[in-house]
């Protein structure tokens, strides 16, 4: 494999709490090839967003520290890059869109003004040239009547429209990597489908890599090529999307997939994983999923399992003995 566009290696991030530092994500590694779309899945609190924010170094410096790891973007370690280099990368190389389009736009600036900010920053565009590009970008994200919409304030637009504006801002400088942090969670289902379709088309047109963060397995299944499953701050499984859905190996992934409601199912109750995700301050010996795992044995409690290669492209953080058991289940 050629060297990846983005490579996160053994990243650990800690948050400050009253009693000291707790580990929010631990030993997270993942690669993202140019043009690839990787889905990052997990429950709330599993560390998906923390991972994403680390890439752009957006954590509050006083309450967060990156205790170990490397984040290599085209071979450059972002964690040790100077501030000016980081500002250049943000927006022009790596862009990000957020979950809540209602609060991601500054209420006192018109759409054109906000979008011009990025253009001014990275491409030195201003005035009529910037405006022309803004209208072009709004058209690109299929906002009808773009020239008129450009002068609107955010509160004139619906949630779906605002998310389109956010996407337009994100792709303004043709970034190589787009991080989409739950881009459709705050939108209703029909708009979700439109936004995902838009993202898919843009990805193809601009040949961007996309890191899609979601807890919606349906969205991931349709959009991503490879999936990373996170649980309680750790990567528990990584596999190409078809393989993950057809043959998940980690007990947590199996639970997740079993919990997806099926229209043709006769069952009156949805399948669930008993228990809840532990907080970062909870001390759990061994595997952090073991308290909820139906397959857990003594070996799971003894020590933190490491990532095991299951096949060429699939790996899981589970002791080989249990993996053998789970394959029997699957």
């Amino acid at each position: 494999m050629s060297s990846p566009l983005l490579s996160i290696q053994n990243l650990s991030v800690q948050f400050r709490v009253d009693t000291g530092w707790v580990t929010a994500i631990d030993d997270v590694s993942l690669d993202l090839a140019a043009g690839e779309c990787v889905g990052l899945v997990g429950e709330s609190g599993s560390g998906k967003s923390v991972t994403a924010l680390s890439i752009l170094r957006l954590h509050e410096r006083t309450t967060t520290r990156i205790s170990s790891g490397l984040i290599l973007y085209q071979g450059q370690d972002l964690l040790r890059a100077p501030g000016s280099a980081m500002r250049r990368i943000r927006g022009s190389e790596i862009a990000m869109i957020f979950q809540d389009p209602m609060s991601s736009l500054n209420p006192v600036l018109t759409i054109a003004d906000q979008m011009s900010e990025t253009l001014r920053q990275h491409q030195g565009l201003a005035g009529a040239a910037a405006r022309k590009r803004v209208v072009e970008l709004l058209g690109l994200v299929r906002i009808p009547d773009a020239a008129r919409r450009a002068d609107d304030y955010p509160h004139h637009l619906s949630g779906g429209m605002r998310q389109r504006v956010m996407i337009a801002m994100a792709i303004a400088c043709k970034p190589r990597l787009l991080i989409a942090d739950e881009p459709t969670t705050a939108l209703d289902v029909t708009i979700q489908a439109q936004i995902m379709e838009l993202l898919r088309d843009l990805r193809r047109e601009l040949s961007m890599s996309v890191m899609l963060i979601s807890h919606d397995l349906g969205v991931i299944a349709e959009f991503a090529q490879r999936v990373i499953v996170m649980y309680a701050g750790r990567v528990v499984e990584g596999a190409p999307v078809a393989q993950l859905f057809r043959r998940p190996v980690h007990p947590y992934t199996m639970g997740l997939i079993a919990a997806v409601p099926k229209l043709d199912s006769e069952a009156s109750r949805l399948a669930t994983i008993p228990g809840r995700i532990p907080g970062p301050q909870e001390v759990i010996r061994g595997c952090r999923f073991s308290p909820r795992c139906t397959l857990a044995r003594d070996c799971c409690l003894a020590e933190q399992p490491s990532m095991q290669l299951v096949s060429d492209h699939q790996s899981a953080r589970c002791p080989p003995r249990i993996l053998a058991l789970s394959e029997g289940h699957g």
Partner: protein
Amino acid sequence: MTDVGLGSLAAAEIAAPRRHGTLRRLLRHRSFMIGFSIILLLTLAAVLAPLISPIDPSAMKVRLRFRPPSSAFWFGTDMFGRDVFTRVLYGARISLFVGFSVCVVSGLCSAIIGVIAAQFRRLDGAIMRLMDALMSFPAILLALGIAAALGPRVSSVVIALTVAYIPAGVRIVRAAALTVREMDYVQAAQVSGASSLRIVIRHILPNCFSSLLVHLTFIFAYAMLAEAALSFIGVGIQPPIASWGNIIAEGRDYATEAWWVMLFPGIAISLAALSLNLLGDALGDMLDPRQKGGA
């Protein structure tokens, strides 16, 4: 590259009836219009004072002292035979100037200090304790001290009142900035590569502006009242320059014989304070996002 078919599909997402201008909403707001008209009238009176009343405000005509209000002297005359109407007009210049400059200068300073406190968390403690220390003095007492130390000049009144009103403004801006800096759009601006300074100027300050603006209309009124009080005590604007405060101060010894000398500048002060309060309340209503409604 735009796909026309999909474009029209997306049209369904658009909410937004066309905008109602903020301006139009303000024009329909009754207390805003009342306040605005009064303050506009007072400002015009101050600016056009020499045209409205061609008399010299300091010209003494001892034969004409203590004339009650009449068609010749609308507000009567004082103990030196000076026309009170003319003096109130010229006094408006000083009072409004002091009010306006205190409002602008303390507004600027509070915005800068408040944002620094909110952005540079290490300085926050020091800055806010200093503000607390200033706030622990009653504003008028602090202003009295500073004005007395600087000497009786218009500029020292402005400086004294500015210092006295900065702490409250700083608190307001800091509180607003602390909220705004956590907003997603600030993070979105960071993501797009904006520098901290750019974020402060483009995103944080404008979003703190509405709460500061409301506060400043009240500061305008307070500063005018405080100028009157300082001049009344004698550390403010010195005679023979007329300010509303020192007209009242000079008239107080003759309050029983010549009530008009105190009454009219008093009414002017009350009117100005009232209109600014109406303006402030109206702006507060308008800028409260919960009241924006509609769109």
